[in-house]
């Protein structure tokens, strides 16, 4: 069993001044599910992307079955027997499902220079059937499918040719229960066929349940490789963070009464095709959670409360009677919003940390003549970036160079700097490691006690149960249940209402 499949020797990679991997060496065996874990920016994706030919490593070697390999692109890596399912969307718009599945391998279907589309579609249909995804049609444009179905297509694309190594980079968070089960099934199949799965996830229980071996990276350094059976969640956290993580992860209080004071009244809000007839009140100092499947419409609720929905009906009213119908009004009345789509909606990527933090507060920072001073902006940005303990060289650094967790810290720093009273957080901890998660939870708890109110939209049920005073469950664009904070609440109650 413990025959070596892949030797990673002394692999290094840097991006500009950031050293993402520092001389990493370890082995991966045949017939195992090998998890790769670490905080944001620890180098997991960099390592697997180098292996799959997406990046070119700067130094070191990959030895696959005793042979040194240098994949220069994904197709090349495929031919060596390595395939990858990436974190973000890995399918191409404007192509059919079949064309996506066989991308880079069209030659199999080309005769005398002409592509045999019918043969390709037939083969794709067979594959989709074999995987049990019959509802996805091979000849259909991939654009017509949602995020989740497209991920399923990627699973087919990455596994149909029985790769020697399959890399799965943080894919499960994008999938609902059904899609996850499907993915787990194929991971196990690949393992049983004697091949290898490299699995990246932030979900530690999932990692412990699925994997045989776990390798921990931290800040681009190799830390340790352990057997899953020899370690528990706390042990892993300790390896990832490099010190003991205290047990106080979520809020610890139960039964504290929530104020009766209503700060935001949402009535009969509908967005055509997404949500309908949503009504609720948000109280002062309350953390109100929204849970549901990804397409349940819960993400739109955040936008609706922030005045960012297109075509919204119904009303969002603050305690002083202000109606929120657009973003500038929302911000002027102390509402903050962090989007699930952090890189496009929350942050101006090719802009400095300074400007990103100051952007909504510029009015406050201007003097009587509406003039701004660089020194004042820098001080302001520094203060709040440091409050959030953002890892950076200086506030003049571009946001695009930060890791996911640090980007989120910049987003939060912006709204704390604006001194927002109502914070609408959509998936605030998506793709973020344990340490930063804990920081965010503690911050929310502290701000809650200071009378700030939260709407927290999340796909992570544990987080909702751990943090919220009240949880509203969404299903098919409607509210399908409401649960109060309870020590004994368990995930299944929520799941029941979600599906």
């Amino acid at each position, binding site marked *: 069993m413990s025959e070596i499949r892949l030797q990673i020797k002394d692999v290094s990679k840097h991006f*500009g001044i950031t050293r993402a991997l520092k001389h990493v060496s370890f082995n991966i065996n045949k017939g195992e599910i090998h998890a790769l874990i670490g905080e944001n920016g620890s180098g997991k994706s960099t390592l697997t992307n180098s292996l799959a030919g997406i990046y070119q490593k700067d130094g070191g070697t990959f030895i696959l079955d005793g042979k040194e390999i240098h994949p220069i692109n994904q197709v090349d890596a495929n031919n060596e027997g390595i395939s990858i399912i990436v974190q973000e969307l890995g399918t191409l718009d404007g192509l059919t499902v079949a064309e996506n599945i066989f991308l880079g391998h069209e030659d199999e279907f080309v005769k005398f220079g002409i592509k045999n589309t019918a043969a390709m579609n037939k083969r794709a249909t067979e594959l989709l059937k074999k995987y049990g995804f019959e509802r996805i049609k091979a000849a259909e444009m991939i654009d017509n499918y949602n995020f989740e179905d497209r991920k399923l297509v990627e699973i087919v694309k990455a596994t149909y040719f029985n790769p020697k190594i399959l890399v799965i980079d943080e894919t499960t968070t994008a999938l609902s229960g059904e899609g996850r089960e499907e993915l787990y099934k194929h991971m196990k199949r690949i393992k049983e066929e004697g091949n290898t799965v490299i699995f990246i996830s932030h979900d530690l229980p999932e990692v412990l349940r699925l994997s045989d071996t776990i390798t921990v990276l931290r800040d681009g350094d190799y830390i340790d490789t352990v057997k899953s059976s020899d370690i528990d969640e706390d042990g892993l956290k300790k390896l990832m963070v490099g010190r003991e993580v205290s047990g106080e992860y979520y809020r610890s209080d139960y039964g504290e009464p929530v104020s009766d004071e209503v700060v935001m009244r949402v009535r009969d809000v509908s967005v055509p095709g997404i949500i309908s007839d949503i009504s609720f009140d948000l109280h002062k100092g309350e953390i109100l959670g929204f849970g549901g499947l990804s397409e349940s419409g819960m993400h739109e609720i955040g936008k609706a409360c922030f005045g960012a929905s297109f075509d919204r009906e119904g009303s969002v009213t603050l305690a002083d009677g202000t109606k929120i119908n657009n973003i500038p009004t929302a*911000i002027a009345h102390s509402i903050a919003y962090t989007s699930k789509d952090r890189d496009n909606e929350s*942050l*101006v990527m090719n*802009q400095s940390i300074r400007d990103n933090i100051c952007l909504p507060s510029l009015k406050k920072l201007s003097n009587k003549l509406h*003039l701004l001073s660089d020194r004042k902006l820098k001080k302001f940005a520094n203060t709040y970036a440091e409050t959030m303990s953002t890892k950076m060289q200086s506030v003049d650094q571009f946001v695009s160079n930060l890791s996911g967790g640090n980007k989120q810290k910049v987003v939060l720093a912006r709204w704390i700097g604006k001194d927002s009273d109502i914070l609408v957080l959509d998936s605030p901890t998506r793709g973020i490691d344990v340490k930063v998660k804990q920081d965010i939870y503690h911050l929310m708890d502290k701000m809650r006690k200071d009378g700030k109110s939260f709407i927290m939209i999340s796909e992570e049920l544990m987080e909702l149960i751990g943090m919220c005073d009240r949880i509203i469950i969404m299903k098919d664009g409607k509210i399908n249940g409401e649960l109060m904070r309870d020590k004994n609440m368990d995930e299944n109650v929520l799941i029941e209402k979600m599906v």
Partner: protein
Amino acid sequence: MANSTVIESTNNNELKKQSIINMIRSLLPIIGLVAVFIVFNVLTKGNMWTSRKLILNQVYVVLISAVGVFFIMSMGGLDFSQGSIMGIASIVVCKLSGVNMILAVICGILAGAAIGAFNAYFYVNRKIKSFIVTICTMFLFRGFIKYMASNSPVAASMKVYDYDTTAVKLGITIAVLAVSFVVFRFTKFGIHLKAIGAGEKATKFAGVRTDRMKFFIYVLAGAVTGLAAFVNIVKNGSATANVGNQLETQILIALVLGGMPISGGAKVRFENIIVGSLLYIVLNNGLIMMGLTTQAMQLVQGIVFLIFVAIFADRQSLSVIK
């Protein structure tokens, strides 16, 4: 421990290298300006220096109209209709110069602003890419100009020559530059503009009324060029069918020579306008003095433009040209 210090020092070295590259990039236009100026003075045996007043006379129009385009390009847009705006506004100024000079100036500005609003309507409200809209309006209004000025140039009243002094032309230029510098550099206006260039959606989510801003900037750019039209008429006395022809290209080349990234965003600097316009005019005049033909000059311009775009293009955000 030893290991981490090694890493620190490599990090520092990389950081230094990066900042040196950035510094060279930002200094290159200024070095270029000085170098080109010296080279041409040597080659023309000081002729360029003696005719500096003539050269300066050409820089005003480009310099003023470049301010509006600079704002547009900061937010990631483009404007190819500047030459036609200049043409229409020049004709308006000529026609009204006989009535009242102040009225002429104001109507020139309004004419420019109106075309700017026309561009903005199609760009912002009808959501058509700015370079397509402005190429269309470039031809549309060029057609108007040909129609109005083909038979005979539209002549301005003789009174405009009273304003043909360095004080007036330089005064207007400096006033426009000074006001826009302060507004761009020291108010939220500049930060908003650059943020739109670097990421429009996120800027909208940070509470900036991006559509209103984009509309306003196109109107403003039109108005500024309308003002430049007055300077143009003061200098030339009449508007021919070719008035303002290729001004848009001149501005674009000037800004890029000044180090402006073509996709706008966080890396634009106000200095780009001034250094770029001067560099462009010096280069142009130098080549003329060297006796180059118009065709050869376009060839050289094309090559220089390509080199500078290649140096200053911000490749990470090139896809966001609007």
